[in-house]
């Protein structure tokens, strides 16, 4: 992997994780993010929220962005700053994310009517994290950037 330290500010530390695009590997991202968050001093409740958000983001990248193509990778970047943890999850963009889906609030009544009960992931991430934005990764894939603040 490349030396990322040159891209970071003096008071921030970056961890990079590159995972196979296969369901189950989101647990590696969850445990890595939780380990760093605990080290930074986040409360257990916030660590659990982070685990859930990272799980949703990586699962979306595997299932949708990379279209379950196991030859593709998911890149997770964890940036620890004195007052916050920034988590970026990027896929290889086989399927570009529909921007309308990033701001939608799903309705439970609609889910009852549908066979597919999905579509709650992005809403859940917005509920759990302090800042969320959707961008295009430098590699051209979809990228979600989530921030959780230390209180």
């Amino acid at each position, binding site marked *: *992997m490349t030396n*990322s330290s040159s891209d970071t500010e003096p008071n921030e530390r970056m961890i990079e994780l590159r995972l196979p695009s296969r369901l189950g590997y989101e647990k590696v991202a969850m*445990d890595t993010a*939780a*380990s760093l968050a605990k080290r930074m001093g986040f409360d257990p409740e916030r660590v659990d929220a982070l685990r859930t958000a990272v799980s949703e983001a990586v699962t979306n990248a595997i299932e949708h962005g990379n279209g379950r193509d196991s030859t593709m990778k998911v890149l997770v970047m964890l940036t620890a700053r004195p007052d916050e943890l920034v988590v970026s999850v990027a896929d290889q963009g086989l399927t570009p994310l529909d921007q309308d889906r990033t701001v939608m609030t799903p309705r439970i009544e609609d889910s009852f009517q549908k066979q597919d009960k999905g579509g709650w992931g992005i809403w859940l991430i917005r509920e759990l994290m302090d800042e969320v934005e959707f961008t295009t990764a430098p590699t051209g894939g979809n990228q979600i950037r989530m921030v959780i603040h230390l209180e």
Partner: protein
Amino acid sequence: MELSFPSELGYERVARDAVAAFARRLGFDQERIEDLKTALGEACINAIEHGNGRAPGLRVDISCVCEDGRLMVEILDQGLNRYQQRNVVASIDTKLSGLAPLRGMGLMMIAQLVDEAGFTESQDGRNHFRLALYRNQKTPVAQS
């Protein structure tokens, strides 16, 4: 799986948790995973303290692959100090009796915990340290 982290003491704990999750995903027993975590922690501390000489701004890189039920974990530092192979390795008894330096006991412990351990040849100026864990025959191990 690949992981890259700052060469600072304490971050080896994040690496231990990441690699443990990877091994768990592949179906390794918890007991073997604990051995792997201990061995990996030692190897990362060696990389930070010796290979990278505790110099600021450097990185430690880890790659994990699983082939034919053999999990291989490679730890790379930036080779500020290159590992020197000694022709004669002092035994633990010799070390404890004060007839040889105490250094090097981490490598001895690592060798006891995993199925393969050692530095591998490299031309890139970095130290490459490899650990391998074989699957428990009773436990199915998925390909990574």
